């Protein structure tokens, strides 16, 4: 039930942002039609040198995959952190084992150089 204010909040913020965008349409002068240069891509004042397509760097994938893994780790940590006083030492050590395995994965990727950007 406490999600209802959030829903209302979402709708209101959506409306507000739409209003903020449309206000500038109402009052701005539409001069871009007069200057076609204003519609061209901005490349520090020069014309674009080459094709906009470039090879995509694999490191972006690597970073996002690592993010997914450690994001999942955090989702497992949340219930553990909340219920730590109920699960005792056994629950504590089971999570430590989980974290150890993840740490070993982390050491692997560190040594492999997945975290160096350059």
């Amino acid at each position, binding site marked *: 039930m406490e999600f209802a204010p959030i829903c209302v909040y979402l709708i209101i913020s959506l409306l507000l942002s739409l209003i903020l965008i449309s206000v500038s349409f109402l009052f701005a002068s539409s001069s871009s039609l007069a200057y076609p240069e204003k519609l061209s891509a901005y490349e520090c004042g020069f014309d674009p040198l080459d094709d906009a397509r470039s090879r995509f760097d694999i490191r972006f994938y690597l970073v996002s995959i690592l993010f997914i893994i450690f994001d999942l780790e955090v989702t497992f940590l949340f219930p553990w952190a909340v219920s730590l006083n109920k699960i005792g030492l*056994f629950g504590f050590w089971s999570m430590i084992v989980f974290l150890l*395995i993840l740490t*070993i994965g982390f*050491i*692997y990727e560190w*040594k*492999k*150089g997945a975290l160096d950007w350059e």
Partner: protein
Amino acid sequence: MFEHDFLALFPEIFLINATIILLIYGVVLSTSKKYDYPPLVRNVSWLGLLSVLITIILLAAGAPLTVANLFYNNLIIDNFTYFCQIFLLLSTASTIVMCLDYFKEESLNSFESIVLILLSTCSMLLMISAYDLIVMYLAIEPQSLCFYVIAALKRDSEFSTEAGLKYFILGAFSSGILLFGCSMIYGFTGVTNFEELAKIFTGYKITLFGAQSSGIFMGILFIAVGFLFKITAVPFHMWAPDVYEGSPTLVTAFFSIAPKISILANMVRVFIYGFYDPTWQQLFFFCSIASMILGALAAMAQNKVKRLLAYSSIGHVGYLFIGFSCGTIEGIQSLLIGVFIYVLMTINVFAIVLALRQNHFKYIADLGALARTNPILAITLSITMFSYAGIPPLAGFCSKFYLFFAALGCGAYLLALIGVVTSVISCFYYIRFVKIMYFDIPKTWILYKPMDREKSLLLAITLFFITFFFLYPSPFFLVTHQMALSLCL
């Protein structure tokens, strides 16, 4: 809390620890400048082989006197799991033995493939002893995940990448189906444990249009389909030939050896014990017939070795399902005998394929005049092929004989008939190997490098078993009978 459970799981714990240590060792040393970035793959393979052997010793030393349920009844250890796990570890060890030479020849320097093989072996060990739908699924997934990665091991080969992608998509799809089946079963019964499922399903008539059981029926159907995808039974086999052909030969060998044992063990546990109700029997009956027929007919048209072996393994899954669809103790026993002998023969064949890998041995015709260039290897391959085909004194004949015998014993005359007919048809292409090796004069003579010592030892041992199995099969029958009994009683 779980002191005894951890003791009972000692082999798995050891194997996981050994894998982790190997991973750290490999990554630290292979990126060290001090040692000039050594390719550690051979070293890690030997260490991996050693850790598998130690795991076998640990497992064998803790022979179960009786049944043990571990971790709140989530895992089970009994005679069935005990022997299946030992056999699985032996087959993993022989795969690693096969690959010792492979990485150097292929100049593949990824020690991670060995680590992944060991990890998937861990999860297959857990898969064999799974006693709960959730544990079963959680054990199947890491195994498949490791397999997806090692199928795409050769990143510069188009075929390997394609195989990895295909395997991933089909594997994820089949896991989804399996998971949907599990959730149907859970939704309609409220339990996931096999023991409780068995209690629910005793004497429960499951029909498609029954008042309360149609959901359960659909659940069983979906679980069966998911498993049939994983074991490449016929209506769901389409990925297997491409994946087997595309992935590196070592990986193909591992795919066609180890998961067959673990998935069949898991299936037997689920279907014979968990869902003891003959509703699923007709499904396996149909798949068995279809696999036998397709395996026999489609393999005839193949020119490439690995593709042919893929179809042959599909056909063999069909023969194994004969024993499965009977559902009697004799059926289970013959299924286990069939799996063991199939795995022995497959280890042998893939060791040969890996030994003949000069010039990328790909087509069957490349075997021409092997009888003259390497007569002993030619004899080995001929005997294995005769055994695959089921020629009398060899092990393959015994396995097929017991399967057909079990089918006759439970009244499935049609299965036995089709099995015999397709086994006769499949003789054609198995014997074609022999014909090519002994009677064909090739245009270009291909000389293969001599194989390494480990592979030749492996070949000698498996060939010995295949050839002289019939002289003293009783320990084997006793073990499989004990396994079948511990499952059914």
